């Protein structure tokens, strides 16, 4: 091999260094809550994904006045898919929002730009997995219940929550991944609110969501293609048990209707479902279409003693 050939080979192997990632500022919505502010939050998640693809992110949380736990679960899920991106953040000026953030374990995923005060951190129990984990469901319930009520109790609400968690974990196998053998991870949190005497649960998956995985008849499909009906209507039908499960087996697909029934019966309070382009406030019968879709499915509910 001549000198010239060797030099050309070396040159061919040389790669230009990747441009160094810079931190870019990303303001966080003042209401950092998907159940209270879904449109703005979905836009925020889109911006986070877009800017985080080539930059590190600096979250500006100073103006945040409301933070809810399901939004933290959703952010945590999003950040886990952006491993090469460093995300840092500051603390809100508002004291309530600051406390929720400090207790949430948020700064286990986001680097704090200021030293964090000492105190009870990680009060919000967070778990993620790709399996249906019955013992994890129990652990989340026991943690939330003991924080909110001071002792471990079993009630219709805890049994309904256990049912809901197992069904939702199972759905990440059945529908979230679109194919039977592919399994999407899920995130679940429990937060025991001792002041309001409630436990707040959130469950999130980032799979294809409910709507792409249900089985519709040719008539239903044609009806929808003609512009009649939308996902909000479809969610109502799924919850009412009117839509067949993707498996086509008549005895499958009972999980979501049972969760709906437990909400109607009052065991699961304040049930919200945000799935792709649908926002549903179940107890108030509000089902509406979102302009900016949510990438996956989020369930939020609360339980009283």
């Amino acid at each position, binding site marked *: 091999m001549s000198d010239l050939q060797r030099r050309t080979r070396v040159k061919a192997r040389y790669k230009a260094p990747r441009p160094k990632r810079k931190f870019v500022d990303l303001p966080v919505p003042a209401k950092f809550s998907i159940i209270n502010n879904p449109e703005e939050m979905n836009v925020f998640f889109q911006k986070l994904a877009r800017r985080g693809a080539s930059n590190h992110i600096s979250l500006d949380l100073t103006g945040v006045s409301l933070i809810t736990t399901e939004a933290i679960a959703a952010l945590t899920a999003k950040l886990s898919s952006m491993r090469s991106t460093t995300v840092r953040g500051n603390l809100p000026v508002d004291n309530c929002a600051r406390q929720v953030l400090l207790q949430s374990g948020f700064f286990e995923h986001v680097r704090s730009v200021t030293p964090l005060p000492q105190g009870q951190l990680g009060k919000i129990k967070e778990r993620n997995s790709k*399996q*249906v*984990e*019955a*013992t994890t*469901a*129990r652990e989340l*319930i026991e943690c939330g219940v003991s924080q909110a009520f001071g002792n471990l109790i*079993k009630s*219709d609400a*805890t*049994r*309904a*929550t*256990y*049912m809901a968690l*197992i*069904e939702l*974990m*199972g759905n990440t*196998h059945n529908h979230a991944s679109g194919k039977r053998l592919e399994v999407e991870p899920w995130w679940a949190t429990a937060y025991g609110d001792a002041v309001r005497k409630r436990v707040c649960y959130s469950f999130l998956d980032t799979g294809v969501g409910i709507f792409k995985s249900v089985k519709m008849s040719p008539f239903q499909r044609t009806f929808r293609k003609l512009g009649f009906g939308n996902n909000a209507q479809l969610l109502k039908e799924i919850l009412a048990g009117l839509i067949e499960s993707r498996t086509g087996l*008549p*005895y*499958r697909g*009972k*999980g979501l209707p*049972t969760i709906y029934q437990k909400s109607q019966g009052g065991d699961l309070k304040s049930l919200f479902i945000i799935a792709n382009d649908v926002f549903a406030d179940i107890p108030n019968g509000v089902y509406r279409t979102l302009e900016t879709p949510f990438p996956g499915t989020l369930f939020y509910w609360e339980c009283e003693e």
Partner: protein
Amino acid sequence: MAINLSIAKDFSETPGPRSREEGKFSGDEFREEVLQPAFLKAIGTGQLLEIDMDGAVGYATSFLESAFGGLAREYDPGKIIETIRLTCKDEPSLVNEVVGYIREARDEKVQRRLR
């Protein structure tokens, strides 16, 4: 005389999902390893099978359907209703729910025969 079976004591306090591939303590696992052998023993000896559902953290719909609906898809649902006695003080409505799954499996069998 009756054969007694407690789901919480003889299987798990945390009954899980429908199938084994989804996670531990599934309805399939319960049916194949605990319920079915107890049911066959009860039939073989002419005894009732008394199943106590109390003591568990809760039950997913898919667990109960897989366990009891699954049993009714394999064996005569009429014989299952005759043989099994369910009790659940924690959540009494679960008894009717389970009976409903057995009946649905029976109706599905009838419909399949008519097709």
